[in-house]
Every structure is written in C-alpha cells, then in structure tokens.
C-alpha cells in the first residue's frame, strides 16, 4: 500500500505549493512553506532517506521558517497586490515545465532496480563500504569519506553564509552607524 | 652599424628622442636641441641603409613572433627606403620650422607636441620598414594614435571635434576594412609577408581579389580616397607643423605608401595588370583627383585649399598603383617624394604667413609677397612642383604617371592628369599672383595688424620696415624644402634607379 501514501503525500505537497503561490499574507505563506518542507521530509523518509528527511525537517521547517518569520517582523507581513498580469513569467515557467516533463519520458521508473543509478557507482558503496570504512550508515560513509570533499565544500558554504550575515547585519557596525547618524543630525 | 641594428635604431631613436624631450621639458632650448639632434641622428641612420638597398640587399630584422608564423619584423626595400628617407629628412626640417613657429605662436604644451611628434616619426619608420602586413598595420595604427594628440593640440571644442572625425575615419576604416582585408589575406595566402610578385596570385577568385582590393584601398583611410577624405581638412585646426607632418612627412604618405606596397608586394603588379581587376580603382582615384581639385578651388582658407590639394595629389599615387604598370608604379612612388617636398613647402609658407600676418584667408593675402618675398618665392616654387612643371621634381612623377596610363592603354587617365594640372594652376597660381601683383589693402603695412607679430624677423634696411619675414627658423626650413623641390628635378635619376627594382625584381 506504499503507493497510497505516495499519492496522498504528493497531493498534499501540490496543495500546499499552490496555496503558497496564491497567498498574499506573507506570515501565513511562511508557515505554509514550513509545512511544505515537513511534507517533503515525510516523503523523503518514505523514499528511504531518513538522513535527508531529518535535515530537511530541521532546516526547511525549522531554521528557514524562523529566519523568514524574523525577517517579516523586521519588514512587513503583507504583500502588495500585483499591478500587472505576469504573462511572461507564466510562459517561461510553462516552457520550462514542459521541457522537464518531456525529459522524464525516457527516465527509468521510480524504484527500478535496473536504473543506471543503481547499477553504477552506488553498488560499490553498498558492497564495499562495510569493509573499506566500517560505518553502517552508508550516507555517512559516502558523505564523510567517499565524497568527503563535497562536505568540506558544504562547510565552506555555511561559513560563507555566516560571514555574509555578519557583513550584512553585523550588530556592532549597525549601532555605530546609528550613532554616527545621530551625531550628524545633532550637528 | 650593421643593417639590422640600423633598422632597430631607426624605430627606437625617435622614441629615445621623445623620452629626452619629456625629461628636458624644463629647458626649452635643450629640449629642441634634443629633437634636432635625434632628427639628425635618425636621418644618418636611415641614410646608412641606403647603400645596402641600392646594392640590391634587403636588410632584415625580426623582432618577435606575435602569433605562430606571424612576426613583428622589418625588411627594407626600395619603396620603404624612399619613404623612410623622406620622413626622416623632413622631420629635421619640420622640427627646425616648429621651433620658429611654436615659439612665434606662443603655443602651449610644446613638450607634448615634440614628444608625440617624435613618437609619430617612430611609427612612420615602422610603417616604412615593415616586412609584413601585420607589422605595417601595427605601426599604421600607432601612427594614427600618436598623431591624435597633435591634431587636437589646442584642446578646444573645435579641436576635439576635429579629433573625433580624424580618429573616427582613420580607426574606423582601418579596423573595419583594412584589418578584415589583412586577416582575409592571411587566411587565403597563409602568410602576410611582402614578397616581390605578390602573395595572392592563384589563391582566390577574381571577385575576392576585387573585394580585397576595395577593402585595402578604402581601409587605408590615410590615403584619403574619397569618400574617406574628411579627416584631412578637419585636421587643419592643428598647428601648422602638424599639418606638415600630416600632409607631407608621415601620415598621408604612410597611407599611399601602404597602398603602393600592398599592390606591389601583396597583389603583385602582374596579377592586377593581367586581370584588369583594378580598373575601378583607377576611376575612383581619377574621380578623387578631379573632385578634390574642384573643391580646392572653392576654398578661401589657404590651409583648407591645400588640404584638398593634398587629397587630389594623393590619388595620383593611388592611380599609379592601380594602373599596375611599371611606369605607373614608379611614377606613383616618385610622387610620394615629390609631393612631400612640394606640399611641405606650401604648408610652411602658409604657417609663416599666419605667424607674421595672422592671415588665413586667401582673399586677405593681397600684396603679401611684397612684405614676405622669400616666403612667397618659396611658395611659388612649391606650387610649380605640385602643378608638375619643370624644373621642379613634380614634373617627373607626372611624366611617369602619364606614361603608365599609356602603358595600361588607358589614355583617358592622361586626360585626367592634364585636367588636374590645369586645375592645380587654377587654385594655386592666383595665390601667388595676388601676393605679388595686387597691392595690399592697407596703405601702410607697418601698423596694427603687423605690429601684432612680435616674432617677425625684419630683413633688409633698404626697404625700411616694409619687409617682414617669418622667424628665421621657419625661413630656413621653407627655403630648404623649396630647394629640395628643385633638387629633386635634377636628381630624379637616382630616385629612378633606387625604385626600379620594385617593378623589375
């Protein structure tokens, strides 16, 4: 009965995505986006990827939502009515989507054990990693060792984001600015 | 000095001169002396190459391989030898003249003037001695860019606009057409070397040859073939020595020299002669000859009239090249030298008149020959040479051009040459006549107008103050070039001997 869960989850995902697109209230959009991430995480765990699901739940539904909410409290929570009908974006999106759907026609079916992805590279991870690395969690083995360098890059990305936010919102700097401005106002 | 060292020296010396000029900017006398000495040295260096070329050698120097198989390289052959001699020789004269003129006019930024002038000469040397089209093009562009600050010397709105036309046409044609033609040639022939007999024969269809010839002819904007001639009259805003540089020493000569060289060493005379593919270029040149002369007739501003005269005269050379006969090519090549001496004399005179009398319009120049007899005599000599009358050098080149036209069995171009000569008479002689035979407008030439020229050299006691010539530096220069016009008539055979190898390799 796995496919029933599949269909239900996918339908829910569709529903939330469209809701977000239709919503004008940013606050509710942020919350629904969090729900979307949670549903995505559910589906990921249905697809046997608990690690990713775990992360998506923590990041997508957790950190991202918190950040968006904080930003909303700093700005505004209502989106303005659009002044023009977004025809061009619609065309672009439809073409892109059509191209992608066209591309799926030759793709292996979901879960096909004979798919190229399951015949090349991955088998070695599954068969050899217990001897080569000795870590039961294959995701950890691949993440930290076989493709450990990607993870180093990922850490660097995170560091970049931290530096970015420090530069953009660095507390000390902002306070000093304000003090400068006040001084200038007084002068 | 070995020939190849001499080649390097010829290109480098003017640059050294420029550096000296800049470093001596605080001492004008030393600065000008540096210019003159470099000029003399350069002329000596170029002259040292002459015996080699006369004896049939072709001194070479390869500098650096720019792209695989494409070198920045020099090779001196007779045509380039002639151009180098003319340019370096006239540089000395022009510098002499400039000293008088620039000081007489109290021009600003004289250091910049001398420095860029020297750099332009270096570029001209590079053009003259280029061993292939790539080198030629490189120095051709350098010449354009280094003369831009000279043309716009006054930094006024007007100068800026003239500079735009100058640069627009010269860069536009050279990048738009000439470069395309060069790369196309490279693609067709696999080389860009100047070789006797040409490199294009047998590589392309006739229509390609015609298109290439058009790209080369119009791409060489410095040759001022109509309709790409506008830059030359526009550039008259510059000080007179710059006009001399443009019209006689380097710039336009570099243009026609390039066309001549391309016809002889890239297309090959035989290719053009046998196929008759250059006939249209002969008509285009003939059109420019006549049309520019007619325009010259309508100009009252002396420098403008001379500028159109130059446009017309340049097309003589293009015509000679397009004839693709030995006499035509020889006549055209000789005309490079002949016209240089004639036209530089005329410009020197125009500048002298401006320095002394502040007159630019021909209609104001009544009786000026009485106050400036030496200047106007030189003008007369120069005019005769341009018209092509013996005993001036210009007579020979016209003679050979006419021969060439007959050789090409195109008698119509003999007629063109005749008509053009008549037109030359019509636009040059009235100036001389007015200067000597018409009484000046003002009763006394010694008042306001003339008093405003403090640098004038007062000559002769017997005429009282009625004779007032240009500064002595100017005078020496213009006499020298006028004498050159005469001399070229008598030493034309040497020139002929030098140039013959290019048509009979």
């Amino acid at each position: 009965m796995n496919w029933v869960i599949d269909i239900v989850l996918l339908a829910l995902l569709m529903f939330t995505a469209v809701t977000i697109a239709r919503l004008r209230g940013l606050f509710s959009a942020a919350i629904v986006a969090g729900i979307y991430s949670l549903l995505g995480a559910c589906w990921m765990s249905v697809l046997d990827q608990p690690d990713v699901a775990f992360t998506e739940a923590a990041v997508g539904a957790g950190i991202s939502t918190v950040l968006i909410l904080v930003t909303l409290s700093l700005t505004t929570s209502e989106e303005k009515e659009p002044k023009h009908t977004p025809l061009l974006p619609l065309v672009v999106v439809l073409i892109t989507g059509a191209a992608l759907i066209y591309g799926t026609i030759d793709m292996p079916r979901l879960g096909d054990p004979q798919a190229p992805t399951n015949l090349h590279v991955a088998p070695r991870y599954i068969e050899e990693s217990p001897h080569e690395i000795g870590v039961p969690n294959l995701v950890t083995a691949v993440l930290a060792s076989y493709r450990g360098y990607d993870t180093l890059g990922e850490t660097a990305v995170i560091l970049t984001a931290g530096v970015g936010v420090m530069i953009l919102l660095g507390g000390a700097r902002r306070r000093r600015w304000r003090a400068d401005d006040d001084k200038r106002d007084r002068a | 000095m070995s020939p190849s060292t001499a080649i390097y020296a010829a290109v480098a010396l003017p640059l050294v001169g420029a550096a000296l000029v800049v470093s001596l900017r605080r001492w004008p006398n030393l600065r000008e002396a540096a210019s003159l000495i470099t000029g003399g040295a350069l002329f000596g260096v170029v002259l040292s190459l002459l015996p080699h070329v006369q004896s049939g050698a072709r001194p070479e120097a390869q500098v650096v391989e720019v792209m695989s198989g494409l070198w920045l390289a020099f090779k001196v052959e007779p045509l380039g030898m002639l151009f180098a001699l003319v340019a370096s020789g006239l540089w000395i004269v022009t510098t002499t003249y400039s000293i008088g003129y620039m000081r007489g006019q109290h021009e600003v930024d004289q250091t910049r003037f001398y420095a860029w002038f020297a750099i332009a000469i270096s570029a001209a040397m590079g053009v003259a001695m280029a061993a292939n089209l790539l080198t030629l093009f490189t120095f051709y562009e350098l010449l354009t860019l280094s003369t831009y600050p000279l043309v716009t010397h006054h930094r006024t709105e007007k100068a800026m606009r003239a500079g735009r036309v100058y640069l627009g046409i010269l860069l536009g044609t050279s990048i738009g057409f000439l470069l395309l033609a060069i790369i196309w040639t490279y693609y067709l022939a696999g080389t860009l070397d100047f070789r006797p007999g040409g490199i294009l024969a047998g590589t392309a269809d006739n229509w390609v040859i015609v298109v290439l010839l058009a790209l080369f002819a119009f791409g060489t904007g410095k040759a001022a073939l109509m309709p790409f001639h506008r830059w030359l009259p526009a550039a008259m805003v510059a000080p007179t020595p710059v006009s001399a540089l443009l019209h006689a020493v380097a710039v336009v000569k570099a243009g026609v020299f390039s066309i001549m060289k391309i016809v002889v060493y890239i297309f090959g005379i035989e290719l053009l002669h046998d196929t008759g593919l250059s006939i249209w270029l002969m008509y285009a040149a003939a059109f420019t000859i006549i049309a520019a002369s007619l325009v010259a007739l309508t100009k009252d501003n002396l420098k403008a009239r001379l500028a159109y005269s130059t446009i017309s005269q340049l097309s003589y050379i293009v015509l000679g090249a397009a004839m693709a006969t030995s006499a035509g090519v020889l006549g055209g090549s000789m005309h490079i030298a002949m016209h240089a001496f004639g036209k530089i004399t005329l410009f020197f005179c125009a500048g002298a008149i401006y320095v002394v009398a502040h007159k630019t319009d021909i209609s104001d120049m009544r009786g000026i020959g009485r106050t400036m007899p030496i200047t106007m005599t030189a003008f007369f000599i120069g005019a005769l040479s341009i018209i092509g009358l013996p005993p001036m050098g210009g007579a020979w080149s016209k003679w050979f051009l006419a021969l060439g036209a007959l050789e090409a069995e195109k008698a119509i171009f003999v007629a063109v040459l005749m008509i053009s000569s008549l037109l030359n008479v019509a636009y040059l002689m009235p100036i001389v006549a007015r200067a000597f035979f018409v009484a000046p407008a003002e009763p006394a030439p010694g008042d306001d107008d003339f008093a405003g020229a403090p640098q004038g050299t007062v000559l002769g006691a017997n005429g009282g103050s009625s004779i007032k010539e240009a500064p002595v530096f100017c005078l020496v220069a213009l006499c020298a070039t006028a004498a050159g016009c005469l001399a070229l008539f008598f030493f034309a055979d040497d020139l002929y001997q030098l140039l013959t190898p290019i048509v009979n390799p």
Partner: protein
Amino acid sequence: MRDQAVPRVVAKLLIPYILLYAFYVQWHGDYGPGGGFQAGVIFAAAIILYALIFDLRTAQQAIRPRVVGLLVPLGLLLYIGVGIATMLKGGVFLEYGVLEHDPVHGQHLGILLIELGVGTTVAGVMITIFYGFAEAVSDR
C-alpha cells in the same frame, strides 16, 4: 513570551535535553541517521529557543557572540586540519585511512573528526545568523 511562565519552564526543562540530543546525533551519525550538520542545527536550535523564550541579551551572555565567532572558523579549520594531517602522513587530502595503522580505524577516526568540524561550524554559523537577525530586531 518573556512574561509567560509556562513556556519558560518548559523551555528550561527542554533545552538540556535538546543539547544532549544534539550531542547524540553528533556522535551517533555513523550508526543511525544524523551527523555533524544535523547536530549543529539542533544545537543552534536550542540556543535559538533559549533566546526566543528568554531574551537575546541573556542568550548572548550565556553563549557569547565572540565565542560563537570563534566556533565558525575553528570547525572548518578542524576539517581542513584532518585533511592536512592525512597529507602529512603520506596520504592524499582527506585520505583518512592513513591516520591509523588499520585503515578502517583511520576512516572511523577521520569521519568522527570531520563530523565534529562540520557540527562546530554549522552550530556557530546558525547561531551567528540568528544573532544577526535578532540584533536587527532589537535595534529597532
């Protein structure tokens, strides 16, 4: 939420367990789902919860921004350090096998260390980001 007793009490009870869970996820990533990244995020979440429930200033007194600022580069440097160590031991970059005599043990050690590096940086960055935004709020 500062004035409400229930969330405060619940948070006070919860936060130690969240931190504990973070450490569990950190060290247990080899066996079950999880690893440095998830641990870092959970650790940060605990601090964020603390700041939300109590006060930014209180949170910053407990976990000083300066210390957090140190965590960020140190984690990455630890990661790279492991790589450099493997290079010094004659392997290529990140070849954990050379860290110990038995390659499998080496792998284990390497993975543990780099996961720690990832966790440190991620926790540091997440807290930094939160502090950045929260300070912007408190500046208003």
